């Protein structure tokens, strides 16, 4: 089954959240499990980005390209970029891939490519 990253929709008022929070930001009336998980859409627009050179020890690369993307459902997400020349406003497409490798653990997250 292909991996997804999920947004959380409040069952009482319908407000959508990414990432998860226990109390709905919209109505503040729900119970912590009164959410429905919805996979995040993959299409979005690049809002901002940076190339990080001072990397955490676990990344064995020279630089890491990070960005914030606004997805087609209005939610924003932080992710890694595999884009040669990023530009604000660029159309991008997300894939769920391994974003971090720590000893015996692999962490999956959203990686964005130019659309």
């Amino acid at each position, binding site marked *: 089954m292909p991996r997804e990253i999920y947004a959380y929709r409040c069952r009482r008022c319908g407000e959508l959240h*990414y*990432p998860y929070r226990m109390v709905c930001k919209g109505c503040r009336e729900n119970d912590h499990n009164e959410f429905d998980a919805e996979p995040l859409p993959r299409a979005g627009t690049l*809002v*901002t*980005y*940076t*190339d*990080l*050179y*001072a*990397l*955490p*020890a676990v*990344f064995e690369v020279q630089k*890491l390209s*990070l*960005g*914030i993307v606004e997805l087609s459902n209005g939610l*924003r*997400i*932080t*992710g*890694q970029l595999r884009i040669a020349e990023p530009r*604000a406003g660029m159309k991008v497409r997300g894939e769920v891939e391994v*974003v*971090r490798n720590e000893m015996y653990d692999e*962490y999956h*997250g959203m990686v964005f490519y130019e659309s």
Partner: protein
Amino acid sequence: MRDVYVAGIGITSFTRLEFPLSEIAAYPVMMAIKDSSLGDIDHLYVANMGGGRVNHQTGLASAVVDTLSLTPSGAELIENGPASGGSAVKQGFMAVASGLCDIVAVTGAERMREVNNLEATDLVATLTHPIAEYIYGVTLPSLAGMFTRLYMDKYGVTERHLAMVAVKNQKHALSNEFAHIQQEITVEGILDSPEAMTNNPYVADPLRFFDCCPVSDGGAAVILTTRDVAESTGRPLVKLAGVGQASDTHCVHEREDPTDLLAVRRAATAAMEMAGISPSDVDVAELHDAFTILEIVESEEAGFFPKGEGHLALERGDTTLGGKLPINVSGGLKGRGHPVGATGVAQVYEIVHQLRGEAEGRQVDGARSGFTCNFGGFGNNVVCMALLRE
């Protein structure tokens, strides 16, 4: 609520300190006690972020209260990321204002240079959201880099403006014997010259090496008390007149407008309202320039300059010593250094020092009201204070 006064201040050099964290926290309290002649401390607040993680010392306040022989007075550790210092001062304020305590000591300390740079960076990165930010390799410089890019695109701030903040604050720091960075730099040297790429490489573009504050060890302390007790010391009366705090979303990508620092705006407004002043009344300010862009944006969000025009005020020289509203005459985080737990307390130290008229070499003439902004996380928890000379 009673009025609260800052009766004593103390600070260590911000540098690499080969002393246990508890001693780095204790030493400025000893200095503040000497400064105020008030030794009967009812309660001790200790601000620190990394003690448990990089210094292997949890329950730090218990260690500090004992090494100072302040037992059996109560003591607590306050951890609020980079706003630990501000939060601890706020707790001390509340203890005296409420009537629960008469004389309170607040100290902030950090010993980040006990570990290497990678571990120090990782310590600070643990502030980020574990699943939505941290796993991607997001560090605070990367959040600042993304924020800076947006600000440059929207308001026309350039790398030159960022360099000007670094040059200004390192120049200011030369007049501060306790400051970490004692190095005069020029915009040409860090930006224009052929050596600039080597001297000033990119850290998280568009932020470069000189746009980021250093990793420092150090401690700062204040003694807070009632008006009567403060008067009895015979030292100039400086009132901690206003405190304000606000939070914002944990993930930076969830901010309503990613070019706003709403928590700064709200905390600053609350602090100044409590003190009964407006931004135009402020004579001297200590803002949280962990990254040069933050000084510019905080100066706008605090109400000193219109939104998007902070860099113009910087160009005019308004925020340099001698200008209309000197900012970070201590050197700020960039020049003075940033032992995370100490910074919020060090900012109050500087403002008190200025309002007393004792800041020889960097005195803002006639300073009667001051302001501090202690910026936690990446703007998701901010504590601001307003101080007045009576």
